[in-house]
């Protein structure tokens, strides 16, 4: 079975290669092998595999990566719409979670 892919050309991931110091942290933390070090600089090699978790941006010491991270969850987005807030995992009033 090939890797499951979600919708193409939607993610907000951006990499500023000029700022990259080649530390490779993005390649380590990415759960979908979106980055690869090429010529001592990171490169986005599988953009559509990005799930916008935000781990790369948070762990980039140079601030070279930006991504609008958030919850990729329909019910989270719906409850955010109802409450007029950002999408949230808190499906329950007491602050529990709905993720597995």
């Amino acid at each position, binding site marked *: *079975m*090939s890797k*499951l*892919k*979600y*919708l*193409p050309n*939607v*993610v*907000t991931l951006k990499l500023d290669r000029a700022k990259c110091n080649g530390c490779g*942290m993005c390649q*380590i*933390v*990415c*759960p*979908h*092998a979106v980055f690869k070090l090429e010529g001592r600089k990171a490169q986005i090699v599988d953009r559509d*595999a*990005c*799930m*916008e*978790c*935000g*781990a790369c941006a*948070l*762990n980039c*010491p140079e601030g070279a990566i930006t991504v*609008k*991270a*958030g*919850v*990729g*969850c*329909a*019910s*989270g*987005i*719906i409850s955010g719409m109802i409450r007029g807030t950002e*999408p949230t*995992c808190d499906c*329950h009033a*007491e*602050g*529990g*979670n*709905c*993720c*597995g």
Partner: protein
Amino acid sequence: MKTRNREFKKAVKGSLCSPSIPKVPCKLSLSDRFNNFLVRASFNRHDYAVDPGLYALGEPTADSPVMVSANYKLTFDLLRQALVGLSAWILVLDTNGVNVWCAAGKGTFGTKELVNRVKLTKLSEFVSHRRLIVPQLGATGISAHEVRAESGFNVVYGPVRAEDLITFLSAGLKATPKMREVTFSLPDRLVLVPVEVVQGFRYFAFASIFLFLLGGINPVVNLLAAYFAGAVLGPVLLPWLPGRAFSIKGFFAGLIMLAVVVAAGTVEASLVELLAWGLLITSLSSFLTMNFTGASTYTSPSGVLKEMKLAMPLQIVAAIVGALLWLVVRFF
């Protein structure tokens, strides 16, 4: 959230290294296994927490590795099982009883909590090295360079799955690309199905009673088919259903179940009735499978939002038209 599992308390009672450090066994007891199964099936799952703090696994020394974990008992149990035969420190963060990845997404498994917990537990007095092994999926909440600046500890990201930890440790803290990738295989999806089923069951039960009063058992069977399509078939058949959007996959899962109920004869042999249930089953199934994006490991929020904007108006219109058509055949 503060109530802890009674059996677990018993397990951590004995302590060898220091009176303040609870010692935990690697092996899970029978009651551990039974309770873990119940939680998987969504019973009591918001109340399955471990006390945050430092734990000793085996007989750790000042050189033993420090594993950072969440205070969700399923997470904690996976970790201690994966480390059978090893001595290590486990630093449990307070994530309100939520697993590492979800808690990291919310920021409770985060830089601030990690730095605080390192200080609160006086970790630097127990170990001579300055290295924290953080599960890779925790990186969504933790900034390695900030932790280093604020606590003096270096964050090393371990593999995604606890089962790869021993290999990771014996390879000198090196993970293969495979260990760094999140999968969404059939077993991964199957463990999530009970939660999907239980979560929407309340609505399903209400709607069933309503439908039963209006039309007897057949519409209830059809509704059950729609529910099964969206909450079970969609997630299980995910890679094989056409389309990339979950709502489209759910629509096709609904078509399969529509064929089943037509064959079973719970949909009457009239075009309007077929159209009514076709719209109802596929729209409900599409919506339910779309909600499975929350449990999936590869959908981006931008993608989900795009999909929802297109799919939800269609799902709502289809459901309303389907319901009206059904009422028309039923009562006119």
